[in-house]
């Protein structure tokens, strides 16, 4: 049995003794059928949750559907390039 592992879950530091995606979701009390999971930018299929072993330092995103809608700022971002310079307009 390995000790605590440090992960990043939805942008926050997260320590766990769980080994797989399935166990991690269970620990967070999340129903797997209602979410999608990404580990280090790779989408993990639901069928693979039980067999997918997490590693120290893994970055995990757990997302679900919310009302939408437009105009909400995304909370995860990959790219750096943007067509519009948002600072142009000020606030």
């Amino acid at each position, binding site marked *: 049995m390995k000790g605590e592992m440090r992960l990043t879950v939805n942008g926050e530091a997260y320590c766990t003794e769980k080994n797989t995606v399935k166990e991690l979701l269970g620990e*967070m009390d999340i129903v797997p059928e209602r979410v999608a999971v990404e580990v280090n930018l790779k989408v993990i299929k639901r069928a693979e949750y039980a067999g997918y072993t997490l590693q120290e330092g893994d970055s995990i995103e757990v997302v679900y559907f919310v009302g939408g809608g437009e105009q909400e700022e995304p909370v*995860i971002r990959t790219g750096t390039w943007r067509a519009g310079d*948002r600072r142009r*307009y000020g606030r």
Partner: protein
Amino acid sequence: MEDKFVIRGIEFRSRLWIGTGKYRDFEETVRAVEASGADVVTVAVRRVNITDRKSENLLDYLNPKKYKILPNTAGCYTVEDALRYSRLAREAGVSDMIKLEVIGDEKTLFPDTIGLLKATEILAKEGFMVFPYTNDDPIMAKRLEDAGAAAVMPLGAPIGSGLGLRNPYNIRIILETAKVPVIVDAGVGTASDANIAMELGCDAVLINTAIAGARDPIGMAEAMKHAVIAGRLAYRAGRIAKKLYATASSPLEGML
């Protein structure tokens, strides 16, 4: 005569599609969706709050067996982000449908059509049924169609602006040139706007803000339902030509 609305083998009951953002709560969302008669509801993909988790889930209220859940990539400003959200949405959801948004600018929320075209191409190849939110440009609509879009969703006016169809002539050209269905997305402010889009011959209208932001969202949802039905019927029935002068409707024969 039957007037079925089918895209790639999927039959849609309603030509009014509803966004689920900006409602007070899930109850109001459901009541508005029901009043609208829509069977397509758009949703956004967001992080689960792992520290303060609400037990309620939108899908507990909007049953995916009853409604077609259309996830969007709202808020994505890059191709990479749009692809990432699309792939997550497919895994979280129940279908390959994606309402693709690649936003170009925060103030207008106009689409970045170059990014949109790239993302459409990639996602269509991955088997997605892509519904790209685009501007009212007939050429871009054709390019999106060629890239594999299942339909095109030109804006009537900026998202949430309620300005109605600012360029109905371009929408008409899109309708003439596009082979895929045309669904007006964004800009509808009130029932007459939705009606005009349908009278032009659009296949459907997607509305969020005009309903969610109305004083009485449930009442407006119902108004939109009737406007879309009336517009479709009028389009199929064929309007009369506009003339400058009067043409009497009552016969002159038999007058005293």
